[in-house]
């Protein structure tokens, strides 16, 4: 987390890789949720432990998203969608000029 803070909000290869890792690891963990739950089968407070695992990974993911947002990687502003704004449709036609 400290490293993430130190990495700053500029987009370059290392912070980007770190953010990717940060987002990817909780996702991976969530993917292997069933396997983890299986490992916890013996435990008595299985539900609680599972929940903590889920919340912890969720937090990690949120943190990664927040980091992405801070770095400006998420398309949340209108400027990110500017390229898709269609040209205005013309309602009137006008023409003419200096008298020939």
């Amino acid at each position, binding site marked *: 987390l400290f490293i993430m803070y130190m990495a700053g909000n500029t987009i370059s290869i290392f912070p980007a890789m770190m953010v990717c890792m940060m987002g990817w690891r909780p996702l991976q963990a969530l993917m292997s949720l069933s396997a983890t739950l299986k490992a916890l089968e013996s435990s008595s407070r299985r539900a609680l432990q599972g929940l903590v695992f889920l919340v912890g990974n969720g937090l990690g993911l949120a943190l990664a998203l927040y980091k992405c947002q801070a770095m400006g990687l998420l398309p949340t502003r209108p400027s990110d969608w500017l390229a898709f704004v269609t040209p205005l449709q*013309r309602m*009137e036609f*006008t023409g*003419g*000029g200096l008298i020939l």
Partner: protein
Amino acid sequence: AAVYEDQVGKFDWRQQYVGKLKFASLEASQGSKKLVVATEENVVAALNSRSGEILWRHVDKGTAEGAIDAMLIHGQDAVTVSNAGRILRSWETNIGGLNWETSLDTGSFQGAALVGLPEAVKYVAVLKKAALSLHYLSNGHQKWVEHLPESESTQYQLLYSCGTGVIHVVGIVPQSHLNILTFNVEDGEITKQVRVAAPWLRGLQGSCGVVGEAVLVCVDTAARSLHVCALDTEQDMRHIPLQSLELEFADDFQARILATQPSVTGASRTQFFLQLSPSHFSLLQYKQGLLSHLRDFQQAALVSFATTGEKTVAAVLTCRSELKPGSSDGLHGGSTLEDARRQDSLTCSNQTYNINLYLVETGQRLLDTTITFSLEQGGAKPQQLYIQVFLKKDDSVGYRALVQTEDHMLMFLQQPGKVVWSREESLAEVVSLEMVDLPLTGAQAELEGEFGKKADGLLGMFLKRLSSQLILLQAWTAHLWKMFYDARKPRSQIKNEINIDNLARDEFNLQKMMVMVTASGKLFGIESSSGTILWKQYLRNVRPGSSFKLMVQRTTAHFPHPPQCTLLVKDKETKMSFLYVFNPIFGKRSQVAPPVLKRPILQTLLLPIMDQDYAKVLLLIDDEYKVTAFPATKNVLRQLEEIAHSIYFYLVDAEQGKLSGFRLKKDLSTEESWEVAIPTEVQRIVTVKGKRSNEHVHSQGRVMGDRSVLYKSLNPNLLAVVTESTDTHHERTFIGIYLMDGVTGRIIHSSVQKKAKGPVHMVHSENWVVYQYWNTKARRNEFTVLELYEGTEQYNATAFSSLDRPILPQVLQQSYIFPSAISAMEATITERGITSRHLLIGLPSGAILSLPKALLDPRRPEIPTEQSREENLIPYSPDVQIHAERFINYNQTISRMRGIYTAPSGLESTCLVVAYGLDIFQTRVYPSKQFDVLKDDYDYVLISSVLFGLVFATMITKRLAQVKLLNRAWR
């Protein structure tokens, strides 16, 4: 923007012109290689008479100040008088160097002549309204200047000397008498002054000539007689009636006399031409007081004298068939224009002409001297004839002829009728230009056609696809075969000529057809990648000074309908207009009949709606504010009725200082919806510019540093109007800029720039306007840029209506200093508008500067901040520099540039540029570099060898791995 050395001439070409000839001189020897010309475009040049190329060229000012009044040739020197007789220059004709230049006193120029003593030509005499001056030919120094007596009442017009040590000056008091002065060459003393009564004479030019040993011959059309007076001896004019010679004078034609003086050191020829009607000349001789008739030339279009050695010949250009008054083939619309011209137009019905030589002493025709040549059907008639005569080895006379036709074409002819070269000098005055896509090839068109048609069953479609693929295959094999065939031929023989039959669009649509309209009324179709003229068409009934508007009604995209261009021609004097509809690819007149325009047309509007044949609808508004539609089919009229409420016209009357808007009604009449008056006492409207209709703007806004969006105000109906003050005092002069909405007449922004002066050059595009003017206070050229933004919110994100705009846009403005004046300005344009824009600025030096628009951005901050850095804004600096590497035309300068035309190509990165003026230059520009094209020096060999190597290596290693696995398994 600069090019590498090996790219020179790869994408660009330049053609140089001299303009319509005013004076020309051909050397009278067979081996001579040059002809010296002075033109209406104020150019002195020498052309190579073998190829027609320009050997050297000097371009003077384009205004009246540079106008060439006279050109005299003596040996290797050409003496020109220019700027209304103010400047006398002598040029070395071999290399085009200036020998000397002197300025003369003021006074309106009347004539110039070389003055010879019996042994040599040493002086040049210049006749002004009130003075005669004599200059040395060797250095231009003035020998003497003498005032002419009674110069207020007498118009001195004629200057003559024949190597006898005196100069004769003939002045005229119209319808009263002639004043003949005789000057001594040595000291300028008036040795003789004679007054000769001539109450019937109005002017000397044309109706008088000097023949023999200083004998003045004048023709009196009314009395049908000649008047003769020897300048040296006689005191009054002898009257010689012409009835005895049985010469018929044409009615209402001022008869003219054409005489010749072979050398300034000797006497004139005693023979001269008398022009009796536009097509009737007679060769007469006046010798020892006797007038004799040598030969009559009926049906002659032009005559000319030429001398070589002792022989003087007369060349006569005649029409092979009958000359007919007027053109009755009705090729072009506007019949009223034709009627007006009928009286002075004689056309040759099959456009085939003969030139013959006649010996002047006897009037006999010289054998084997006929040149026969043909001009294009429906073309122009010859206007000027210059002859180069020489003696062949066997002492017979040979000659070449230079013919200039009405459409400013120069032809150099050789016996027996071979065109050595021809030049299209009307291209020195291009007034309007459009670029049209070339048509698809047959095979491509077939494919396109397949997609265009309605589906007719699965099997039918499949068969059609098969057949079109078969055609493609056929075309491809034909292409391969041709390549194979060409490869066997030696390289020099392979001509990759472009002609009208193999015209086809290239892959990226980089090659286009340039349709050029010239001031002489000649249209040209020029292929843009090589500059070859593919077709030309002369509109005979266009008078000089007409205004033109060229529009593309149907592009080549609608196969099988041919593309269609429409040219509106409006005569300045009669105010009548006509439409000429043609196919821009082949130059043929279209079958479509344009409407006959009874009223003068004020303006036009090309609508994006199409008729069933995919031709865009052209609306013409006449001086009664009625609208004519072309094409006017039922379909079109129905569509027009539907959308009439959204069609508006704006008309700008610069003379009355009035801008007015009109709304179209359903019955094709209009009603005025707004009017803005700009008082003409204070300021006058100089330019009005709307936006280009084919412009695409990809980005609707700009991303700010804080990642919000600043939306552009893209009003398609916006007009930029520039006015200049009538007061030109440098303290009070100003220019005004008005941004107006063309639909509502609402003034969106107005500003007055004090202490500024025109000429104003302006570019209006997207959401910005850039204009350039002269700052009289700081004495420098300045640019001002205006940009319009809507703000961070769009009022209406889907449609733009001028009638529903409650919020005025924000206007940002900044000014810059530019170190040079400019002669033309235009913005680049690309297919989809993604590429960044550059301004192309034509400098008076002939260079074209490609200036990134980002340098002229009113958001450039004075103090750079974090946000502005984020936006990549360049900090403001007031001066815009001219870097030579930004010139797109390296050393191919364009003389007297009048305009730059830009057109998009099929590649988003590439914009086609044509600059025109006296020269024509075509090139391509890449404002954002060639991001969608592989570089020229792209290493295909390396890349493909690496690729193949890698594939090969994988195969080997795979094999090796297999072997290893097998070995391990065995172990």
